[in-house]
């Protein structure tokens, strides 16, 4: 765990240096592009935490091990923080580049649904006192909420016009980003993922 702490610390310092001093302003986005290196890793973790919440929930239902429930609940708590940070940084980026904090872009819609799911899950968790019952009921809800994923990924984006930049790997299958930006972004995603693992495994129930 000590090694992980050091790894995250060093990676974060390198990342801040790259974002503030090395990455050039992007065409059409200017200096606002620096937000992307914080926003994308947060959005990535919000989604990872959502699936991990469901995964640990399924593992709990299979093994009835309270450690799995702890990981599921902790993942949802972390996911809620990440999704709020992704939403806030995305809104600032949206205001700077498109002139409005919120414009019902498909990805903004998806992130809002994710906030509602995390909020509902955590509310349900806080409303049940019995530990075993809470673990069982919340695991079922987190798995059931996963059923919305195909709709959020494949159908909802067709309903709304999007101003959002292309994903990292665009529809043509190529990476449309300068190498230094790409490297910084991947480093940011790695740093954030390690931070998630550290926070997930570093709680009281370790």
């Amino acid at each position, binding site marked *: 765990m000590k090694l992980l702490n050091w790894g995250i610390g060093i990676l974060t310092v390198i990342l801040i240096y790259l974002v503030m001093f090395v990455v050039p302003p992007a065409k059409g986005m200017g200096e606002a592009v620096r937000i992307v290196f914080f926003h994308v890793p947060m959005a990535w973790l919000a989604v990872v935490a959502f699936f991990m919440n469901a995964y640990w929930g399924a593992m709990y*239902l299979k093994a009835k091990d309270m450690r799995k429930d702890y990981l599921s609940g902790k993942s949802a708590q972390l996911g809620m923080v990440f999704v709020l940070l992704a939403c806030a940084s995305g809104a600032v980026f949206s205001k700077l580049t498109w002139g409005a904090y919120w414009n019902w872009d498909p990805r903004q819609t998806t992130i809002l*649904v994710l906030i*509602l*799911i995390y*909020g*509902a899950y955590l*509310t*349900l968790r806080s*409303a*049940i*006192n019995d530990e075993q*019952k809470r673990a*069982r*009921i919340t*695991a*079922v*809800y987190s*798995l*059931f*909420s996963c*059923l*919305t994923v*195909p*709709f*959020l990924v494949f*159908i*909802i984006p067709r*309903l709304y016009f999007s101003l959002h930049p292309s994903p990292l790997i665009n529809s043509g299958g190529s990476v449309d980003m300068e190498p230094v930006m790409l490297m910084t972004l991947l480093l940011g995603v790695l740093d954030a993922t390690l931070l998630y693992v550290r926070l997930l495994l570093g709680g009281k129930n370790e």
Partner: protein
Amino acid sequence: MKSSSSNKIMQIFQKEIKCALRNKSSFLTCLMFGVTVIACVSFALQGNVLEAKMQASIFWIALFFTFMSCGEGIFADEVKAGTILALRIYGDGQSVLWGKMLYNAVFLSVMAVVLAPLYIMFMDCDINNLFLFALVLIAGAIGVASSGTLVASLSVSANSGKGIFAILMLPVILPVLLLSVLLTSQLMGAGDFEMQYLGAVIFYDVISAVGASVLFDYVW
């Protein structure tokens, strides 16, 4: 075995119908809730006609809150009446789920079909194709019913009263809600009707019913 299972499902469905007919308050409360919401919107607008997208959105918001006002009762009423234990002894999880889901689907479809003409009249809506409109209403109601039956069983486990049902429901039924609003707005004149989205609503109905079935045994 198969026939005994379907018998039990039908018996639970009939029991729900009989209970609803005997105690009409739940049906009337739900109906009057819907009427009140529609009347409220109509009073607020005072005869102003909205554009199709807005009409469809308000219609589905009214239906959503109507569904929320009565959906939780499917299990909460059993707990309140003290009959949940008897139901557990009599029925296996799958029979109880499918019986109640079937009842919920019929109940919500009837509610949607009863409230729709009222809304059309008060809001002065033009519907291009009544058959497709009824199909969208029923497909949407089935989606809400299939998710709602499982979520109602989860919400009775929580100790925080009625509010939690709507909180748990909204994120899981958002796909069907958004698609139903889109399809209804198209039928009210905002563009051509896109059949593939009706297919998506039916797909949601199927996967939410199957998902509920797979998970319900862990709740029961």
